């Protein structure tokens, strides 16, 4: 596993642990009469980080779900070609989503959106997510050009 890949997994994993810890503490605190204010906002941040990195990991590993009924009956060459086309179309779809997300970020950049209770900067979160989406587009374009790794 490359250092970059390890870092992505580790950051995503830490986000999972954070979501686990925050919500678990919030539940225990609520039952003890010590509610953890802003826990939902913090979990949202952890979910955004883990979720966007999860999309990246699944893309890099070629593990997106497919219907195999016809594909499994194709020749290796046809399947390799189909993989490249799939990657290209995937890049196109993610590029469209990225453009939309960048558009929204640009519109809201000067608004300094913050969450209500703990003041999470949504601007920073949008920026993080968009960087990951851009990495997904690059990964898919790479797969379309080089072909997927076995």
């Amino acid at each position, binding site marked *: 596993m490359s250092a970059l890949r390890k870092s992505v997994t580790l950051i995503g994993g830490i986000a999972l642990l954070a979501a686990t*810890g925050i919500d678990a503490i919030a*539940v225990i605190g609520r039952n003890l009469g010590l509610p953890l204010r802003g826990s939902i906002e913090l979990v949202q941040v952890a979910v955004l980080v883990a979720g966007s990195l999860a999309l990246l*990991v699944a893309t890099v590993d070629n593990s997106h779900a*497919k219907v195999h009924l016809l594909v499994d009956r194709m020749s290796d060459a046809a399947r390799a070609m189909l993989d490249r086309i799939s990657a290209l179309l995937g890049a*196109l779809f993610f590029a*469209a*989503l990225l453009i939309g997300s960048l558009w929204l970020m640009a519109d809201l950049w000067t608004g300094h959106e913050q969450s209500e209770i703990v003041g999470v900067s949504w601007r920073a979160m949008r920026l993080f997510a968009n960087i990951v989406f851009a990495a997904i587009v690059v990964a898919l374009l790479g797969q379309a050009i080089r072909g997927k790794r076995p």
Partner: protein
Amino acid sequence: MMLATPETGLIGVLILFALLLAGLPIGVALGLVGMSGLVLVLGLEPALIKGGVVLVDTLTRYELGTLPLFMFMAHLFFSSNASRDLFDAAAKMVGHRRGGLAYASVGGCAGFGAINGSSLATAATIGLVALPEMRKRGYSDALATGTVAAGGTLGQMIPPSGALIVFGIIAEQSIGKLFTAAIVPGITQALLYCLVIWIVVRLRPNAAPASERATWAERRAALGKIADMVLLIALVIGGIALGWFSPSEAASIGAAGALAIAAWRKRLNRDMLMKAFEETLRTSGLILMVIIGALVFSVFISVTGVTDAVGAWVTGLALGTVPTLLLVALILLLLGSVLDGLALMLLTTPILLPVVESVGMSAIWFGIFLCRAMEIGFVHPPLGMNLYVIQGVAKDVSINRIFKGVMPFLASDLFHLLIIILFPALALGLPELLGN
């Protein structure tokens, strides 16, 4: 908006169907058709912005945490050898009876289904421990493989279920209510499988010979090994059903508990944690991609009005509730023979949910019904993914023999689906009783 017609929506559905069969990733196919359709119907700028909104809104949804955290819990349990412990405990309790290991496999699948939400994972993991044991004790290949292939589908019904989480997000329904509604259908499904085994063993006693009885000391030891897991699962599912916490909070409690159990069993280390992170991120990414694509596709479908048109067409047929639901079941089963479970759910939910609601059934009921129809797709050809998973475990058993073994269970699945149609209270009774 000239293109915002049901015909456009229908063409979109047909193109999507073709792209799915051509092997495009499900999320990409859904998203591309949805996005292209929105560009045609709304124009480029609104379509792109809508796509951006769906992407960020989905990834910042608090309820979305349910999915990766339940998966995290499952992967932590995988590393703690949960599947072997669950099967061993069930085998020690009933393994001495004729067909006992087959009952134990169903029990193991049900137990393992309660810690992971995947049909394939349940069939594969329980298959790895149960199949060699059953074959060693002289069980027929057909019964052994058929039991685990069918039992694996319990993973998708018994909460926490990945399919129900995805359905809850797509259909904007309470995941807690869906989980509660799945409890009785999950239990009755398992009981029907046990009935099938009982009948098969009665008709063909040689298919499943009795084996030696475990002592009570062995049974206590086996039960002791799973007590912590069973308590955690009971807390997670019971907590949701009784309204003690939300599904997202339950997922956190489950993951925190699984971490504690792994540490208690001295299996928690850096490598194990990294593996659990890796697997959780990969599986969550796969499902998130599909959810995002499906949400974009749903926006397109609703803008074209195709759901209203289909609803009006079905209402115009004036078939009545049960025949309409039987027709919907037939459509799902036919599509399920060429599409895999997730694709089936995401393609049909935006179109069939309004139809089902128009005959007076709730979205919660439809979620259970759809999940059950998806499960049937896992065990019937030509797709029948569980059959291939089991063949991967028992390589010397032909796919035809596995299919022969699963046939009686498939019959019980169809009967169970019919019961869910005729008696909706099977799914809706418990949530109503518990008032959640």
